[in-house]
């Protein structure tokens, strides 16, 4: 076992993260100092020349780029490979391939997401300790729109370093000074003598040279790849239908499993009433309870396993949540507004007293809500695990987190009484992820089954019904927003209170060795503070509202609800002030040139202010998130019968320097579709503690007939890259709600904004809810 995976290291660093001073102990520092975060020394692996942790060159000139980031459709494999190709000075063509490395080398750790310091700016003891602790933990994950921000610089350096080593190898071979050599097209050339050597010819010698300390990076003026759209490296295989997803993993002697989770979260399996009957179904080899809380059926075919699982008659224990309905959940959120002990995140000035003292006509108060939501990734949740007789384990998972896979596999096997001596983790392509695939749940289950069926790979697939109704959720949330407007109509005081179930606590309780308290959850208040609006008195608070529902990351987390709340509310303020929503925001953003530029760009694209037909309206929303600034204008039509259609959404984003522009456009398009489905269609309801919705017939998705026209504009920038995976989702709901208001005068303050009606086979339409009387 490599030293960075040792159990001792894990415990040590787990404790350190828990806040103890253990790492400061002499032994701890000495131990951590030995953690190599900067790279893997060059070496040979058969005929492959490994130049560093990220660059591998084959004798036939093929270059393999190790990208320790999950490809889930965002194009990260392409973007980071482009960065390496740029510095390596090779064309971006099919000689380049990308793999997700199976090793958990510390150089692959996702420390940026935790420390929130860009690698190019990172220095000092906190970074030193943080990098080593997280490297030691094997903390490798993809999320928080942080992959490019966290990896582009290290991968630039890796590419530049490899190029330097190739030059040095060529200088030695040709016996000329390196200064006389140049690279291009995958060759090192010596112009004076007309000689050239391919990278493949040089790679073996290069891999054994010491890496340069600070390799010079290519000046941006010489970039030929970064900033120019390149075709995605993962697309051809996907178009040919090649088996690239976890769902497609096929191994010799593999068996399949289906599963049933409790309808009411937290319930235990009391009894399987018809276990013998299920066991006697064709092909069934095992029926078992996992961890007291779920039932799995194993067969030679998933279809057989699932058919048998459908027959299961399971008695679940009763829980406190057995009578909980959506109405009660909403009441709990509302009652949180009366909490006397909300957590105070920001209290600048005297927001509460300024609002209390203001004249009624200057005070605005509004409550907003959103429901629980599942992720509904297109690829259903699945994992394949093999526990061998020699005690080693291997997992193949469409996961966002090798750490979750390793921990889940160890835990699951442990539940079956097997302690794996190692877990090899293979990360496949993800068929959508949206935060969902960072949980270890399905791996734990598959590993439990694999430990019971040692020597045979077990592929566990959750049915779509398990995914939508029995899995993990974005928290429901409500906010009470209040403001007092000054004489110029702009807010002088802003008081925001959000009620939601702690996201961080939910995730940690299932996945980490330590669970923080629920109060003050940073993820729950994302998008609530509106710091880019200069308001002199500002209070931002949150109240954790517990429930039995398991809460998880969900594309853009708190922004997915708070930005809907706050950008709707700003429109309400503008309306009270008698101002146009765009003009009002421009006034608020007058000292924020970056935001203002994005706002102006999107307004221009939208033709803001030009005439629309009756029943049509435009709405605007803007947010700063993941270090990007994104604004959208939605244009909607509301028919006389209330049917609402989003005709067009325009989007401008300042995401700093953009590596692969077309991939950023795609992320905005995809984010808009995701956000639009959320805004208009998606709702989870609870009855007797259980989720009612189960599949796409009652949890519908947008289809092509309802997809608006989308235009995206990327702002020019020389700032370092910022996030793009989530920002596209963030303004959509607010922009659409504001557009509906512009079209109809109706202010709808809860999501979904519309009611979905089925009008035929795979056809729905969205209609505004009846006006409450």
């Amino acid at each position: 076992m490599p030293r960075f995976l040792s159990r001792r290291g894990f415990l040590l660093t787990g404790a350190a993260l828990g806040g103890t001073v253990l790492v400061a102990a002499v032994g701890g520092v000495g131990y951590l100092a030995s953690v190599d975060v900067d790279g893997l020394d060059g070496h040979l692996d058969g005929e492959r020349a490994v130049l560093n942790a990220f660059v591998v060159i084959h004798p036939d000139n093929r270059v393999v780029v190790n990208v320790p980031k999950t490809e889930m459709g965002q194009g990260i494999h392409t973007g980071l490979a482009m960065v390496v190709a740029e510095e390596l000075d090779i064309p971006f063509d099919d000689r380049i391939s990308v793999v997700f490395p199976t090793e958990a080398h510390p150089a692959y750790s996702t420390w940026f997401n935790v420390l929130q310091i860009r690698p190019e700016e990172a220095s000092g003891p906190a970074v030193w300790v943080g990098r080593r602790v997280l490297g030691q933990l094997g903390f490798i994950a993809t999320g928080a729109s942080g992959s490019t921000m966290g990896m582009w610089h290290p991968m630039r350096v890796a590419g530049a370093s490899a190029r330097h080593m190739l030059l040095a190898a060529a200088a030695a071979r040709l016996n000329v000074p390196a200064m006389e050599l140049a690279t291009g097209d995958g060759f090192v050339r010596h112009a004076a003598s007309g000689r050239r050597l391919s990278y493949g010819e040089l790679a073996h010698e290069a891999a054994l040279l010491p890496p340069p300390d600070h390799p010079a990076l290519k000046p941006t003026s010489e970039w030929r790849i970064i900033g120019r759209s390149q075709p995605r490296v993962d697309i051809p295989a996907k178009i040919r239908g090649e088996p690239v997803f976890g769902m497609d993993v096929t191994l010799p002697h593999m068996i399949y499993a289906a599963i049933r989770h409790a309808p009411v979260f937290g319930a235990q399996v009391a009894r399987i009433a018809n276990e013998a009957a299920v066991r006697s179904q064709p092909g069934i080899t095992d029926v078992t309870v996992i961890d007291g809380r779920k039932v799995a059926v194993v067969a030679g075919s998933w279809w057989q396993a699932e058919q048998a699982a459908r027959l299961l008659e399971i008695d679940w224990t009763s829980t406190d949540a057995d009578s909980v309905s959506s109405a009660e959940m909403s009441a709990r959120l509302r009652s949180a507004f009366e909490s006397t002990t909300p957590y105070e995140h920001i209290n600048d000035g005297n927001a509460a007293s300024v609002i209390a003292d203001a004249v009624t006509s200057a005070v605005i108060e509004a409550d907003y809500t959103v429901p629980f939501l599942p992720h509904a990734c297109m690829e259903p949740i699945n994992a394949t695990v093999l526990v061998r007789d020699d005690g080693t384990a291997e997992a193949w998972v469409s996961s966002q987190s090798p750490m979750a896979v390793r921990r889940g596999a160890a835990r699951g096997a442990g539940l079956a009484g097997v302690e794996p001596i190692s877990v090899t983790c293979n990360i496949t392509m993800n068929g959508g992820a949206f935060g969902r695939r960072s949980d270890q749940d399905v791996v734990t289950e598959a590993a439990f089954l694999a430990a019971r069926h040692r020597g045979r790979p077990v592929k566990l697939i959750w049915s779509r019904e398990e995914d939508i109704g029995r899995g993990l959720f974005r928290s429901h949330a409500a906010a009470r927003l209040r403001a007092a407007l000054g004489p110029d109509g702009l807010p002088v005081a802003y008081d925001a209170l959000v009620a939601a179930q702690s996201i961080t606590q939910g995730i940690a309780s299932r996945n980490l060795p330590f669970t923080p308290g629920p109060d003050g959850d940073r993820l729950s208040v994302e998008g609530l503070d509106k710091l880019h609006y200069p308001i002199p008195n500002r209070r931002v608070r949150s109240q954790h509202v517990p429930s039995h529902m398991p809460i998880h990351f969900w594309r853009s987390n708190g922004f997915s609800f708070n930005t809907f709340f706050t950008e709707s509310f700003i429109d309400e303020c503008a309306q009270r002030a008698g101002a146009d929503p765009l003009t009002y925001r421009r006034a608020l953003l007058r000292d924020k040139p970056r935001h203002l530029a994005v706002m102006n760009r999107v307004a221009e694209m939208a033709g803001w202010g030009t005439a629309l037909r009756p029943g049509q309206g435009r709405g605007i929303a803007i947010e700063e998130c993941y270090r990007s600034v994104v604004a959208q204008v939605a244009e909607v039509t509301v028919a006389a019968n209330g049917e609402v259609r989003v005709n067009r959404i325009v989007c401008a984003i300042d995401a700093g320097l953009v590596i692969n522009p077309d991939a950023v456009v795609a992320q905005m398009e995809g984010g808009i579709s995701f956000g639009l489905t959320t805004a208009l269609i998606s709702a989870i309801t609870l009855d007797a503690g259980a989720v009612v919705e189960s599949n796409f017939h009652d949890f519908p998705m947008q289809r092509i007939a309802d997809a608006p026209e989308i235009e995206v504009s990327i702002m020019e920038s020389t700032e370092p890259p910022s996030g793009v995976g989530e920002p596209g989702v963030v303004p959509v709901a607010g922009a659409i709600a504001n557009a509906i208001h512009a079209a109809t005068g109706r202010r709808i303050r809860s999501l979904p904004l519309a009611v979905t009606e089925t009008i035929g086979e795979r056809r729905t339409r969205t209609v505004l809810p009846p006006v409450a009387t």
Partner: protein
Amino acid sequence: MVSLIVNGSRMDIETDVDKPLLWVLRENLGLLGPKYGCGIAQCGACRVLINGEATPSCVTPVGSVAGASVVTVEGLSQPNGTLSAVQQAWIDEQVPQCGFCQPGFVIATTALLKATPRPTDAEIDEAITNICRCGTYPRIRRAIHRAAALLAER
């Protein structure tokens, strides 16, 4: 035992006749292009051509299509690897994000263009009812028009 012509080859399959074609393709024949997304004919990820018609294979018992010709996404390109016009258009427009839904869209489009060589946007809306959670719809629309144009040239 059920016989099918799958991507041009005759296959004799030892299987329960009730087993959906999707799972026969995936588990018995190792054709993993057709995907499971919902199992209830809602998402279209499992679509294959059955005698030329784009059909959700997740709700099609294999026994009900005995003797039929089945084409999966794997069967669209030529034996030398040349992609079909639809597949090529999908690459040219850089359609897929995660890609999980795309075999179903490619199959649905293949059938649409056979029946309606130059579809209008309204005809596309009518015929293409698959789900893409990643939201690649604008590119799918462009790729359908591009494929139609490519086929008209060929």
